[in-house]
């Protein structure tokens, strides 16, 4: 069975600096992969390379069977992503942002459930307000809702809970789990908060200075040190 994401001996440099150095891993359908590493380790570069937003110098990346570096439009409708920058249209309302995004990917029918999700995440009163009136956390929530409501096959998230309070974090994790189960969404996310990883992920990869250090199931990773995952993660990155 072909992997849904296949990253094969990928190298990416910025000048003389290796952002990714012979990185190989795969993601299977249904996986929830946590991709961890210190600042500047190559996490965002990996995500952007998989999405074809960055050109790699060596190796190849296949997503859903297609070479994304050459055939990025093959990802149409199948992949959504969430980066630091939410990519929202700030002069438009949440309703207009969602309507635009879902319309572009022929998912207009999902608008009602997207708006319902906004109500669930305590943003029901903000649906028809311009996004430039939102707080940082609210914008992040809207961007998450946008990503989930398109029901992609693959969802890539870079620090998805950045700026979100603890109460809403729990709600969002619940919603993500529900969507993952109901729609079979495969996820790959980066985060610095181990609690989020433990609640969401089934597998963990640790990267440092462009090289993979760990690639195993979360259960195995936790079992090795009696569930002190934060401690284990820190020891892994410090030992290198």
């Amino acid at each position, binding site marked *: 069975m072909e992997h849904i994401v296949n990253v094969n001996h990928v190298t990416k440099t910025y000048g003389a600096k290796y952002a990714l150095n012979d990185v190989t891993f795969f993601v299977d359908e249904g996986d929830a992969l946590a991709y961890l590493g210190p600042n500047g380790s190559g996490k965002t570069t990996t995500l952007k390379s998989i999405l074809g937003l960055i050109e790699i110098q060596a190796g190849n990346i296949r997503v859903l069977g297609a070479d994304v570096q050459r055939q990025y439009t093959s990802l*149409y409708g199948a992949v959504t992503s969430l980066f630091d920058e939410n990519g929202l249209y700030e002069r438009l309302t949440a309703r207009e942002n969602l309507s635009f995004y879902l319309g572009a990917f022929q998912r207009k029918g999902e608008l009602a459930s997207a708006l319902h999700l906004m109500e669930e995440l305590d943003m029901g009163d903000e649906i028809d307000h311009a996004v430039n009136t939102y707080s940082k956390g609210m914008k992040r929530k809207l961007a998450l809702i946008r990503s989930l409501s398109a029901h992609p096959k693959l969802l890539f998230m870079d620090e998805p809970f950045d700026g979100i309070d603890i109460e809403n974090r729990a709600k969002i994790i619940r919603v993500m789990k529900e969507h993952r189960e109901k729609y079979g969404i495969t996820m790959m996310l980066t985060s610095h908060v181990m609690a989020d990883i433990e609640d969401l992920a089934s597998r963990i990869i640790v990267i440092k200075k462009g090289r993979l250090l760990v690639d195993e199931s979360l259960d195995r990773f936790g079992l090795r040190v009696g569930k002190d995952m934060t401690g284990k993660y820190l020891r892994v990155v410090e030992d290198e």
Partner: protein
Amino acid sequence: MNRNWRAVFKAFVKKELLETFKSMKVIMLLSVITTNLLQFMTMEEVMKLGLDPDGTAIQLGSISMYMSVILILFVGHTLVNRYIYDERKNKAVQVMLASGADKTAIWLAKMAVAILISIVLLLLTIGLNAVFVSIYYHLDIRYTALSAALTFVAMPVLCFGMLSLISVAYWYFKNMNVFGMIFPIVAYIGIWNLSLLLAGSLVPGYLVAVSLAIGVGLFIFSYFLVSRIKKERIVSFEV
């Protein structure tokens, strides 16, 4: 241009129209008024020539082409700057490209809206100018085949060709802030000064064909460049 391409194109057209009418009504109105004010000063130069009423009416029609250029370069550039450069800076385009939206669909949709809005504002500006001339000078502007072709077709097409190339530059280069500030001023004042100098002159007919050829050629060339720009180039703003 398959179904996916068309969906992205339509979504962006609707979005740009919505955003523009929400946030740029004042700029559009001021552009129409200011262009008419500049044109008034050029028309005064024509009046000084002391031509007979028919000759004056024809000459006023002839200089309408400068209004086309002034308005389209100013408004069109403002729109292109907003649609292309701003969205690149705030990474909104990155989300769409990462989700597999075709960059040519995105670009063509934005250019289509910029062109549509520019044409509507041009017709408004020329209409307003005609009303003003009728009231102030008690004249009706008269267009010959040549002046109509220049005002309504050739000059707009030439300007849209230039704007399409500028839009590609906005997607390709990182530091376009200075250009973005200077270009509209240069276009406005530069073309207006040219109109003052040539207010009494008649424009040669071959200018229609030359302008059309350059404008269409630039647009096609720009589309080709867009299809070749790497996504990494479009999304990497700070690196």
